[in-house]
């Protein structure tokens, strides 16, 4: 027993472990700073956010060590079960859940303990994808035998049926979370596609995705006829010069049909399916409107707070705008504004670099995995972390649209911390046993 424990500790990636602990601790003291008030002046005040976060950190560390007791095979064997359980809880939360800040995504246990199943859906999805993509026979790209090729209306796609299954496994929880009105977490599921790229998903899917987004926004701003004309032009170019690259005229026609349908559907969706606040957010994002009450204001104030930090920042607990609770949600989605104000350019840059290092280390660790299951899972974790990092800090400094997702390990929130602890520590566990896998 003791020799086994020693081997576990010995193979634990110290850098990732240190990164995890640093981010959690740094997050905690910034939560303390952003929630600090005369009435709640202790970092261990359990009626305030800082105290609650401390409890969550303890629970998460406990959870982490608990995970180390499992054999790696457990996660592989139970991946479908965990995925299914999370899907069930996502459905249940739609029925029995409560709405907090506009998202019907919470199970309320007591007034101070709420659980957000969508935070665990990322973990479950990563696990199930690792399970099917970790199979030796799995491939996104159809082989020469092409018996596995996905076909639609008889047209062969650049993807296997297995690949299609992987995409569907991402889309199901994403759709459920979208129904909870939680756009931010739904978008996080795009990070799986980023990881798919590593495992051979054809670049045409990325191109299609990017064009779809462009079509969506331009159709809102410009007349439908204009967009269709541009699409027709692009179609002609593709037909003339890239037919073989794309995979034959049938694919081009199909893509054109798809984009035409999308173009025609955008206006009705925009006007009838989307809600007023969605429309407003889109308009703000497109620079058509200045939203000075909603997310636009938050971003503006966040930039103000960060800007006021200067080179070295105002110092821990000394951020005047932080104290004034100037930036809304500054302990959750806008925690970075507190970092910017109190730790300045130097501190913020250090945090960004440590974050960058942590994510790159995840990728490096994923690459060294002998098991495909581990490797896929590692990439998923890295990409999810990156997507959060990109959207969260991007929002705080005004480079990304405000979708409202936490900065993993740093932002306040028990579900989020537990969710990321699960994600990361399961990978730490997998990685620690990597060398035991025989090639």
């Amino acid at each position, binding site marked *: 027993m003791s020799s086994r424990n020693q081997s576990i500790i010995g193979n634990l990636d110290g850098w990732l472990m240190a990164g995890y602990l640093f981010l959690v601790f740094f997050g905690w003291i910034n939560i303390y700073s952003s929630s600090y008030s*005369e009435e709640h*002046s202790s970092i261990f005040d359990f009626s305030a956010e800082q105290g609650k976060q401390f409890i969550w950190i303890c629970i998460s560390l406990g959870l982490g060590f608990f995970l180390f007791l499992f054999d790696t095979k457990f996660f592989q064997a139970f991946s479908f079960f965990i995925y299914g359980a999370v899907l069930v809880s996502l459905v249940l939360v739609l029925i029995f859940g409560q709405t907090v800040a506009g998202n019907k995504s919470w199970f309320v246990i007591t007034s101070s303990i709420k659980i957000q199943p969508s935070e665990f859906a990322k973990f479950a999805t990563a696990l199930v994808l690792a399970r099917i993509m970790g199979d030796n026979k799995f491939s996104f790209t159809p082989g020469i035998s092409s018996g596995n090729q996905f076909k639609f209306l008889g047209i062969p796609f650049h993807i296997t049926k297995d690949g299609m299954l992987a995409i569907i496994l991402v889309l199901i929880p994403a759709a459920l979370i979208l129904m909870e009105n939680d756009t931010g977490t739904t978008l996080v599921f795009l990070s799986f596609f980023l990881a798919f*790229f*590593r495992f051979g998903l054809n670049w045409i899917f990325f191109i299609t995705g990017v064009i779809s987004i462009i079509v969506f926004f331009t159709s809102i701003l410009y007349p439908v006829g204009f967009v269709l004309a541009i699409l027709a032009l692009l179609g002609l170019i593709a037909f003339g010069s890239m037919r073989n690259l794309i995979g034959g005229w049938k694919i081009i026609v199909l893509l054109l049909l798809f984009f035409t349908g999308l173009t025609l559907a955008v206006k009705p969706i925009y006007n009838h399916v989307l809600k007023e606040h969605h429309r407003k957010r889109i308009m703000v994002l497109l620079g058509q409107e200045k939203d*000075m*009450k909603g997310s636009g*204001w938050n971003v503006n*104030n966040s*930039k*103000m*707070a*960060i*800007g*006021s*930090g*200067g*080179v070295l920042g105002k110092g821990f607990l000394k951020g*005047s*705008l932080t104290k*004034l609770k*100037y930036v809304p949600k500054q302990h959750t989605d806008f925690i970075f504004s507190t970092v*910017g104000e109190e730790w*300045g*350019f130097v501190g*913020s*840059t250090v945090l*960004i*670099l440590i*974050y*960058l290092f942590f*994510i*790159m280390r995840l*990728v*490096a660790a994923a*690459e060294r995995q002998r098991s495909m299951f581990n490797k896929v899972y590692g990439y998923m974790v*890295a990409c999810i972390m*990156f997507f959060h*990092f*990109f959207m969260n*800090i*991007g929002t705080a*400094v*005004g*480079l990304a649209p405000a979708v409202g997702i936490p900065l993993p390990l740093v932002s306040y929130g028990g579900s989020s911390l537990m969710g990321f602890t699960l994600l990361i520590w399961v990978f730490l566990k997998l990685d620690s046993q990597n060398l035991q896998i025989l090639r």
Partner: protein
Amino acid sequence: MNQDSAIKYIYYSIFGFVALAFIIKLFLLQIPDNAYKQFANMYAIRRVVKYPARGNILDRKGNLMVSNEYAYDLLMIPAEAKPIDTLELCRLVDIEKSEFIKITSQVWARIKERKMSKTQAVPIAKDLSKEYFSTIQEKMYKFPGYFLDKKPLRKYPKPIAAHILGYVGEVDTTITNKNPYYQPGDYIGISGIEKAYEEALRGRKGVKKVFVDVHNNEKGSFMNGMYDTASVQGENLTTTLDMELQEYGEILMRNKKGAIVAIEPKTGEVLAMISSPTYDPNQMVGRNKRKFYPGLLLDKTKPLYNRAIMDGYPPGSTFKVMEALIGQQEGVLFPNTVHPCGGGYRISATHRVGCHAHPNADLRYSIQTSCNAYYCAVFNSIVKKYKTAREGYNVWRNYVLKFGFGQNFPDSDIPNIKKGNVPTSDFYDKRYGKGGWRALTIISLGIGQGELQANALQIANLACIVANRGYYITPHVGKKIGDRDLAAEGHFQKHETGIDDKYFDIVIEGMYGAVNVPGGTALVGKLNHIVICGKTGTAQNPHGKDHSVFMAYAPRENPQIAIGILVENAGFGATWAAPIASLMIEKYLTDTITRPALEKRMMEGNLITQ
């Protein structure tokens, strides 16, 4: 495999590119001396509480009784306060330099102990009038970190009705602990109408967050007013009081100790509530309060005390009216019942209740002439009707409670009414031992003396019951909040006494006689053109001259006003209480005074310095 793992560099590039973009953006936000940076250095955000003006208080005819006037507080923000010419500032706001130093050093001590924040504004001088404001305002630039804050204060166009209107003052910690609406420094109705209608009158304060520059000038609202709450104006309160009658009563009661309560019988609306000596309500406002309050508090005549609703006096012979009603209802007293009076009522071989000389009385005449012996006998017969004294006494006591004595009208809007005292049978058990007392032991209750205690409000209410022939509406002072009619909303209940209508005829006849028939005890109050029904009383005072008591209502048909009055150390009820009540009634019903000599004598009478 090699090509595959090379893909990781694409990932590294993407991650690195994003991190670099963030760092460049951070650099642009944080390093150059741009608007974002200046913003935080130039401006502070101040939480400004907007206090709505308290609602006005009007009399029943819509005359203004209480309104508002603006005053100013000098506040300091410790974080922004710079060294200043302290002496000049103190002179401007009229405070001692030592006081200024005391206040500011306390503030700094609290900040050091982390009990308050440096950005929290603290008052240095309060309630500066408009005159101060104009001179200070132009010099404020000399005092960075200090600013003036405007707030409404109470103003009383006429210096009357101080007790019933009550006053407004700063909340103390017992209030702030109980009710989160109130913050230290907030104002609240402390007594009287101001207390009873606090929520309607105060409105709701608003909180506004504003940017201020280094000179404390407001530079626009914070976050477009997202976190602001609008203040809601306090509502005007129309009272049931009649300002003219109130003022007239206060003039009549000058230099006398006592109280008058006038009520409209059919509605229970209090027309006037006078407690004398009184004070100018303007003395309890702002800086005046500091000047006058200690003196008022120490004054031996207790001007702050609302005598109209206090515990204090035995009701005296006015009680006999009720006694007559209870006796009839209990079937032990009839209009033709005669009880002999040989100048008194014999309790035992050695003790008797004295009476004045008059012919033997029937019921009507007993009221008119206020025979003590008669009512001792009535009380005795009520109690004796039952097997034990205890049982009989409890029956009697229940009636008395139903008449409003010994209770404080829980559904009334007049705060702090005292119950007075109608002792329980347990009390007498304790005093005399179980079964150790009889009707005769406590016979003085029959004539409104003994342990009984009542106030002018309860005596006026007794007059209402007679005027209404059997019921009263809870006495109250609120008529309308804004346009809402309080009585129509059912705030004030009708209370039946359980005395049948028919028993009132003979009692009213007696009260008529007391004021209008020669030989009546209150003939001095007689008016030629208005029929007043009344009853005198004398409240025994073991500490000095007896108190003069009187109750009345008028006119006899369709009564419009009922009055209870107590004048301390004024002797027999007819000498002071009855004439003053009569003048009040005449003033209210006709608005003219036909007896200037009587009026002059009453106004000039001085019963305090004697």
